[in-house]
């Protein structure tokens, strides 16, 4: 009995030492990845462009707030994380950061004071960014951004997630090795891979999460990479499957979607609207082509062919279209609601109109396992970002005032099974939960 107690005591002691070590022994900063001349000075606009690629504004600029002054709430499964002030203000921002400290944040997710960032900051992806881009970003945030003196709301998650030292263990298990290694003989594919995998941090939303909530693969060599994730209850769709939109669409349609948030098939909603608005619309033509080429390269299919102008013949209507066309008063509530509320823009064939009204037939938002996105758009509507290529911020009105929970459920259920869609029904309670949550 005494021996057992001794052993237990020893184990507890060992555990405490280990925890103390994890909590208090400083972490080694990942060194620069690649050689850059000591007197390197980024070209005019290079830092700002790297910022656009990394989409820092999406999180660090609050709605209606000063650029990069933080204070935007990021919903996570563990609670709300408030983005920080990354303007060069020395007291409330990052004005006092050295280049090495700045890199330590991007690569290791560790603040100047040694505290670990929550992985809402995509250092899983940024840690593969090149030293040149890190230097360009540092130069931009020190010299190209207006300092803003503003204390932001402190992130205060519940126990145990408020124990930031625990993230160190997570980092140790979850983080891939730093630095980007070109894998292709084709410079276009390498450039596309670099943008998508590192600064673009597409995987932060579009890759599934492992049981410890790390990204399931952070580059194209992983099977899980970009196979579809979830953000704030919305689906971040699969980008690689043979039936996924980026693989079914032609290269020019995929490019149009990324650059302007709309194409002949779909229109951007949810968090992706911010990505188009703050990041993708600023990409150069060459970088857009590289991203498109890379996404198609890592997809399962052969990539969609360029579309030819439609021939004069109309295909025979499918069952859903035929039912809607009949305007039969005995039809169920779901299709009736579609005719009364949706048909004027999305039409009875669910094909919408090129560049204006998205297709609902085959739409990943409509058929996603997570119905939050679809319900959110039906209840609250959606507005396209205004982009350089397509300035019109076209909007769909919300139907929450017009439709009861039962009606939204009937409509959503209809949409998920209409035309070629084959997704499960939505019940009234789910609509009610989404209505109160929105």
């Amino acid at each position, binding site marked *: 009995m005494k021996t057992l107690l001794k052993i237990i005591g020893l184990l507890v002691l060992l555990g405490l030492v280990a925890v103390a070590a994890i909590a208090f022994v400083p972490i080694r900063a990942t060194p620069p990845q690649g050689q850059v001349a000591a007197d390197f000075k980024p070209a005019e606009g290079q830092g700002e462009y790297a910022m656009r690629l990394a989409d820092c504004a999406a999180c660090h600029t609050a709605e209606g707030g000063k650029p990069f002054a933080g204070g935007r709430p990021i919903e996570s499964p563990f609670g709300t994380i408030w983005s920080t002030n990354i303007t060069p203000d020395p007291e409330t921002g990052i004005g006092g950061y050295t280049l090495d400290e700045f890199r330590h944040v991007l690569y290791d997710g560790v603040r100047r004071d040694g505290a670990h960032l929550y992985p809402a900051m995509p250092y899983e992806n940024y840690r593969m960014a090149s030293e040149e881009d890190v230097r360009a970003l540092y130069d931009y945030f020190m010299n190209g951004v207006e300092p803003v003196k503003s204390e932001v709301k402190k992130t205060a998650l519940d126990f145990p997630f408020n124990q930031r030292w625990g993230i160190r263990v997570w980092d140790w298990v979850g983080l891939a090795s730093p630095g980007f290694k070109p894998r292709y003989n084709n410079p276009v594919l390498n450039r596309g891979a670099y943008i998508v995998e590192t600064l673009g941090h597409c995987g932060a939303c579009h890759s599934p999460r492992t049981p410890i909530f790390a990204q399931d693969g952070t580059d194209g060599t992983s099977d899980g990479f970009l196979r579809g994730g979830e953000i704030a209850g919305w689906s971040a769709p699969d980008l690689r499957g043979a039936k996924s939109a980026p693989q079914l669409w032609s290269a020019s349609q995929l490019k149009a979607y990324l650059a302007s948030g709309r194409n002949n098939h779909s229109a951007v909603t949810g968090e992706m609207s911010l990505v188009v608005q703050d990041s993708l619309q600023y990409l150069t033509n060459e970088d857009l082509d590289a991203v498109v080429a890379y996404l198609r390269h890592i997809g399962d299919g052969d990539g969609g062919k360029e579309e030819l102008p439609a021939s004069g013949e109309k295909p025979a209507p499918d069952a859903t279209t035929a039912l809607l*066309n009949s305007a*039969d008063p005995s039809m169920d509530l779901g299709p009736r609601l579609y*005719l009364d509320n949706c*048909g004027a823009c999305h*039409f009875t064939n669910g094909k919408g109109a090129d560049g204006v009204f998205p297709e609902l037939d085959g739409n990943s938002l409509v058929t996603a396992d997570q119905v939050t996105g679809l319900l959110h758009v039906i209840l609250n509507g959606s507005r396209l970002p205004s982009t350089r290529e397509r300035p019109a911020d076209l909007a769909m009105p919300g139907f929450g005032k017009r439709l*009861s929970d039962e009606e939204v459920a009937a409509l959503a259920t209809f949409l998920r099974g209409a035309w070629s869609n084959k997704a499960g029904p939505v019940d009234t309670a789910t609509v009610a939960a989404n209505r109160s949550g929105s």
Partner: protein
Amino acid sequence: MSTRDHSTTRRGFLQSAAAGVAVSAMTHPAMAQKQPPVALEEYSPTYFTAEEWTFILAATARLIPSEGDGPGATETRVPVFIDLQLAGDFGNAADWYMEGPHVPDAPAQFGYQSPLTPAEVYRAGIAEFDEWCRQNHNAPFAELDAATQDAALTALQKGDIKLASTQGASFFGLLLQNTKEGYFADPLYGGNHGMAAWVHIGFPGARASYLEWVGIDKPYPLGPVSISGERA
């Protein structure tokens, strides 16, 4: 004076429609049409006095009677529409040019020529017309039998009864026009209750999407839908 002069402008209509949507959004979170509305006799008018309300119920019931073909002004709650309109921008001529000079016999293209707002025209017109009924038939309009009411309204329409108090505005013209509007307008504005008038004439309402029916030579089968999403 032509009744066209009183027509709500398209912009005005859209503004009031937007206001109506906002109001209905506040008061009808989910499909309020499922609750039956208060009976017309128990309705508390926003603009009309009790006496005026009695007149409006009686007069609109003669302009679009309940007997015969289709629903009447009473079942479609036209009086509620008129009451709400008079209490709002239309009744107050909020966006009309109301400065003088007012020339009652000016050509129609010179627009509305009375110094009174539509709400004031109703107030003055009802009082004077009811007084005419009392003097000629010993009872206010609402208490007359249907045939006498029809005769009085016809005399008013033809100008055989001249109302001095409306100062150049056509009280009958306003009343007839607003009754038709209340009958056919979207239920959002208080009239056309249950979209009964639309059902009667086969108008499919605010669906605004019939592309697939272009060139099909048979009546559109679905009943109407209203701006707030009611189905009939």
